[in-house]
């Protein structure tokens, strides 16, 4: 992968970071049974003999989950293997009903992908080791007297995306994590919800001297569930490791948790105390054989990914990097933007209005989004602006009027009497009044503080309730202010 420029932030130490991301696949049903995948319901209502791990029950693979996992693998540039194997990862825990998790081990679904990132070290391409499928565990709920187990989540399909140790700074880790999430949500296979845990991240981190060929002792940071915490936790851990090494202390390969409130990490377990998971192929599930046709189909139906969209928005639609970033932050926003442009609105006008007004009122819940107006309504509204029928200021007011309704912007503009004021006589009169009322400011303007023109435009807009034709207003005000100069 491309060579990173080493930051000076950690002195002459180079951090080496790799992320393991667990993302829930947004299927209707669980990975190996027909139970609904749904959250926030009373405990254990979405369970059956299979996901309860009852004696005699057998798993049957959910084909929809396979398709989603293939899409994710392809979008991350991985090679999807014709044959992969489900394996059992054996360990005891109350939230793991069968005493083993069905996962993939030495023959995963897909391997060898890449992702382009851009953070503090510039634009780089980093590697993705593998993408594999597995089932989620349930949840233990600890009380004073008892611990309880909720298995609604047990058996929910996950993809685990294992990144190469190619990341060289916490900021890169954060950017990588965000980009993986963006890819998954644009595919529609994950809702990107970090708080609810449908997108989770573990990080492996070590430090070494730049140019060293070996990695330092690795620490795994468990369950860091926000973009900010990833950056904070890694930064803290890197400093901790450097401190230890510089003090000449030796530390063991270990797993640590992160306390976001106290901003410090704590030891969970050291390597030698880790379970031996005794992986072996699950004899209940035949090898997963994926026909080339299915891979081709999935490849052909891949939607435009966020990075490509951003590139297109800037290169072809002429938007700024910032605007393109805002519009591609959520797939629904990008869809809304594109649908608005499809009604005939210019990309710039649509982008500006969405950025300034719509996003403020946008409600998202995972992949679902509720826009205050339809793209057609916004298109109609922007068409009125484009035609000069209403002013920008009126457009905002009109938007407030039609938001949350199915009103037609054009007819509402008429009903509300919204029209750009172009009556030169009436405007001239108002301009005269404003200039004389604000003699002090007019004085300053004439003295060279021409920026004050904006103040006068504001006053005129106020007086016309935003309906004055902006160009005409500018011209009349400038003329009036400069006229006075000559008069003197």
């Amino acid at each position, binding site marked *: 992968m491309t060579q990173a420029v080493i930051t000076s932030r950690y002195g002459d130490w180079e951090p080496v970071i790799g992320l393991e991301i667990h993302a829930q696949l947004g299927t209707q049903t669980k990975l190996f049974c027909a139970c609904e995948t749904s959250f926030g319901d009373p405990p254990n209502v979405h369970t059956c003999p299979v996901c309860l791990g*009852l004696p005699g*029950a057998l798993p049957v693979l959910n084909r929809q989950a396979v398709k989603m996992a293939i899409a994710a693998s392809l979008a991350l540039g991985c090679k999807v293997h014709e044959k992969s194997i489900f394996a059992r990862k054996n360990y005891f825990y109350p939230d793991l009903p*069968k005493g083993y998790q069905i996962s993939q081990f030495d023959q995963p679904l897909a391997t060898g992908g890449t992702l382009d990132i851009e953070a503090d070290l510039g634009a780089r391409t980093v590697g993705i080791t593998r993408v594999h499928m597995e089932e989620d565990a349930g949840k233990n709920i600890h009380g004073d007297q008892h611990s309880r187990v909720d298995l609604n989540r047990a058996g929910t399909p996950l993809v685990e995306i294992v990144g190469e140790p190619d990341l060289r700074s916490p900021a890169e880790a954060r950017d990588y994590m965000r980009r993986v999430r963006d890819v998954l949500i644009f595919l529609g296979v994950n809702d990107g919800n970090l708080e609810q845990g449908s997108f989770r991240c573990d990080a492996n981190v070590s430090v070494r001297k730049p140019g060293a060929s070996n990695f330092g002792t690795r620490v795994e940071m468990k369950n860091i569930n926000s973009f900010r915490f990833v950056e904070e936790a890694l930064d803290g851990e890197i400093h901790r490791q450097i401190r230890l090494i510089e003090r000449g202390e030796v530390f063991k390969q270990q797993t640590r948790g992160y306390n976001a409130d106290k901003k410090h990490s704590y030891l969970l377990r050291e390597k030698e105390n880790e379970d031996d998971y*005794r992986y072996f192929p699950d004899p209940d599930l035949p090898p997963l054989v994926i026909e080339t046709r299915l891979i081709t189909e999935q490849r052909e139906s891949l939607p435009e990914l966020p990075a490509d969209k951003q590139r297109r928005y800037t290169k072809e639609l002429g938007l700024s990097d910032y605007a393109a970033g805002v519009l591609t932050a959520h797939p629904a926003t990008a869809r809304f933007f594109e649908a608005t442009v499809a009604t005939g609105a210019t990309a710039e006008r649509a982008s500006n209005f969405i950025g300034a007004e719509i996003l403020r009122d946008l409600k998202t819940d995972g992949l679902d989004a509720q826009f205050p107006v339809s793209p057609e309504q916004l298109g109609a509204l922007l068409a009125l602006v484009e035609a000069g029928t209403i002013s920008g200021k009126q457009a905002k007011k009109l938007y407030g009027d039609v938001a949350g309704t199915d009103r037609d912007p054009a007819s509402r503009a008429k009903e509300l009497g919204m029209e750009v004021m172009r009556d030169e006589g009436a405007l001239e009169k108002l301009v005269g009044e404003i200039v004389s009322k604000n003699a002090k400011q007019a004085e300053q303007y004439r003295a060279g503080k021409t920026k004050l023109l904006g103040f006068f435009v504001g006053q005129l807009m106020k007086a016309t309730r935003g309906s004055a034709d902006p160009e005409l207003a500018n011209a009349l005000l400038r003329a009036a202010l400069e006229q006075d100069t000559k008069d003197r």
Partner: protein
Amino acid sequence: MSPKLLPRSVVEIAASVRGGEVSAESITQASLDAVAARDGQLGGFLSVAADLALQRARDIDLRRERGETLGPLAGVPIALKDALCTKDQPTTSGSRILAQGIDQQGRAIDPWRPPYDATVVARLRAADAVFIGKSNLDEFAMGSSNENSAFRLARNPWNLDRTPGGSSGGSAVAVAGRMTAGALGSDTGGSVRQPAALTGTVGVKPSYGRVSRYGLIAFASSFDQVGPITHDVASSAAMLQIIAGADPADGTTTHHRVGAYREACSRGVAGMRIGVPAEYFADGLDDEVAAQVRRAIAALEENGASISNIELPHTRHAVATYYILATAECSSNLSRFDGVRFGHRAHGSQTLREVYETTRGGGFGPEVKRRIMLGTYVLSAGYYDAYYRRAQQVRTLIRRDFEHAFQSVDLIATPVSPTVAFPLGSKLDDPLAMYLADVYTLPASLAGIAAISVPCGLGSASGLPVGLQIIAPSFAEEQMFQAAQVVEDTAPDREVIPQACQS
């Protein structure tokens, strides 16, 4: 007063119930009477569902009177190995870990009642079979003598001091003891075929993938197959016909066509090529067993089959291979018995670890623990390659042995067990000797191919039943039944009734 002996044939019972010559209720009652008369001694059952069975039988009779067409197994009394899940009915797999205790009579106290039926149970029910009860077994189907049952000893109806075999010992006892016409067992390394051979019954291990495992409490998933035990070949064919076929709930079942097994039974063996592997007639095979097996093979030849010697060179590795792979799978399969969601949970534990240790320590018997430990060991980091991976490679070699043999023969004939039924207690202290009881049945299990055990006479010294094993390629159950029927038709001593059923 001794109840009239239950008819032997599943096929005949179903025909007479369907034809209205006999009521399902009277057959069920005869079956229940036989259980009441003999099972105290025989130990074939872990639970009996008398009321439910009678109610079911009356319902079948009523439906016949209303003119409805009854299912192909109408009114046939069946015993179900207690490793098969039966909805709301006691299901223990022979283990105290699925019960809250054991009473004085060796009955499970408050046993686990699954919320669902195994697919094979549902299919038999849909065919109008009547379930008499759940039959005894070695705990989690691990054993060859039924002595590993946590609940009660099962005895061989031919000689009460001898084992009926295992692990489906209770199923074989139910049929051989004339308590039911048929039974379902499960065969992992010989658990249907060996007890069938030792009790003079027919037992089928279908090809892997032929019969659904959904609802069979797993021992070793890549070996387990459910199969029938009956008095005669045609009855086994009739039962397999019902339970065979793809099941959407079991991804390891296949869509191969289900054969016409009953019809196949009458086709004979003329022109069939049958191979006899030298490896199965070496040291350790009792003379009286060898004699009857050779006689049966000669009878097949007399009926038109051509007999040839074949080689299955990797046979000698079968026992070691099996006990690595099967224990590996069982160590993982039995992890779910953790006391958290069902069955026995040790009380008074202070920590999670204690819950696991006391629940499993007190719930599992010694043989189950031995196999969990063996299996855990062979899967452990550092040992996996030497044991599990190597054993998988040998399994492939054993499978290839058979593939190679089946290029020149249609079927293979061998003994089922090296000895007739051995005395109870004789191998209890020697697990390795017990494991060798399965030496002739393990290879077909490793290869995943079909096999049947057919009675072929009584041993000249012991007077106890001897079984012949017919091994067929995967999904060639039809040919297997063809030959099995000929073996049955030419077997001596067919009318001898087991000692326990004579009084």
